[in-house]
């Protein structure tokens, strides 16, 4: 998960914050549709293999979205009837 972690300093304590959120879909086609829709709405999105901690089988793809964009992304996808399973989960 290198590169997805961001260290921020807060009250002299180092807190590790996950900077991205994961959305999963029931099929590969939904994931591709989500990617196209989010790109259309100028939201940064990256399709990744479904994180192994989320799915017992290894079928499917997930979308990785910046923490800041997650609410907008979910509302775009919901308004276009993209089926989602996990809606913006953080994965360690």
């Amino acid at each position, binding site marked *: 998960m290198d590169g997805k972690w961001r260290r921020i300093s807060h009250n002299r304590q180092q807190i590790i914050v996950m900077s991205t959120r994961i959305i999963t879909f029931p099929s590969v086609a939904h994931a591709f549709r989500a990617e196209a829709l989010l790109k259309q709405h100028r939201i940064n999105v990256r399709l990744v*293999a479904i994180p192994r901690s989320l799915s017992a089988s290894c079928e499917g793809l997930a979308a990785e979205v910046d923490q800041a964009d997650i609410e907008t992304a979910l509302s775009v996808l919901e308004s276009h009837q993209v089926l989602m399973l996990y809606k913006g989960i953080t994965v360690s």
Partner: protein
Amino acid sequence: MNWPILILTGIVFGLGAVLLVRFGNPGNYGFCAACHLRDIAGALGLHNANTLQYARPEVLGWVLGAFSLASLQGQFRARGGSNPVVRFILGMAMMIGALVFLGCPLRAILRLSAGDLNGLTGIAGFLSGISIGIIFLKRGFNLGRAKLHTSGGAKFFGYLPALAALQLIISVAFNAPYLNFSAKGPGSMHAPVWLSLAAGLVAGGLAWKTRMCLSGGFRDFLLVRDTYMLSVYAILFVSALAANLHLGFFKLGFDKQPLAHTMHLWNFLGLFLTGIAATLAGGCPLRQLVLAGEGNTDAAFCVLGMLVGAGIAHQLNIAASPNGVLFNGQIAVLAGLIVTTAIGFIYREQITPIGKGA
């Protein structure tokens, strides 16, 4: 990535496979989901090829190893209901393709690691098949979502593959009279039962842990450039290559390789069929066995399809031999391709195109 586990898995499969050959298995036959299941089908009387009958403890160990580790880690879940009949048919197609090539995708890599260049032809076919499978996935192919089994009977079915594997392991260890045992040919060649079983159990546990799958590995690489699963196979290949070179099993070329033929078109098309079917079923033959062990009843149906496919392949002279692929085998691969692509077209969700839906 959990590199220590990935490296260990690659070594156990690569080195383990070559050592199993060293201790008695036929050439490049240490681990193979397709051939070993075919031998198990023979042991159970599903086909009468009397040189190919032995309940191989290696793949039985995969199922039991996956079951044991999943249970120990509290992740055994009886689940299914995602079109089991289609998965059964895909299992048959996967097996028929693999027996025309003479090996599952894992054996294609093991064959290549011993210098058998026909492995390359097979892998090229497998990769092409996965590329076709991906087109179906992108177009909306979906067999539906599996659900956790809650009723007693369905839950019990989740345990059946592990129970069946255990029963067969005990039977083969005690030379049970109700199993067939080849007296000659590849089926008569095997490492000691305890060694095959130990290798299978460890490999199965690790395969479950890493979720290794060659069709999934190529699929994830082609779709999103993810190299997690492919890295296991790269380590596997290197360890097997090193072991083959060290033990003198390495022989570069196409001709006269152990349990292989040189009909390039059919080597290619065999694993091409397996590649499409595996992508649609969501995992290669090895992965289906591991999933069956951890309670996935859909994968169990796929494995049953593979067993029946092996029976049919040998009863109808579909399976290849070192002499090549007979007419029946060629027809069966073409029929398999028609059925598999038809499944790819039929099981498609209706997804609104973005241009119209937006």
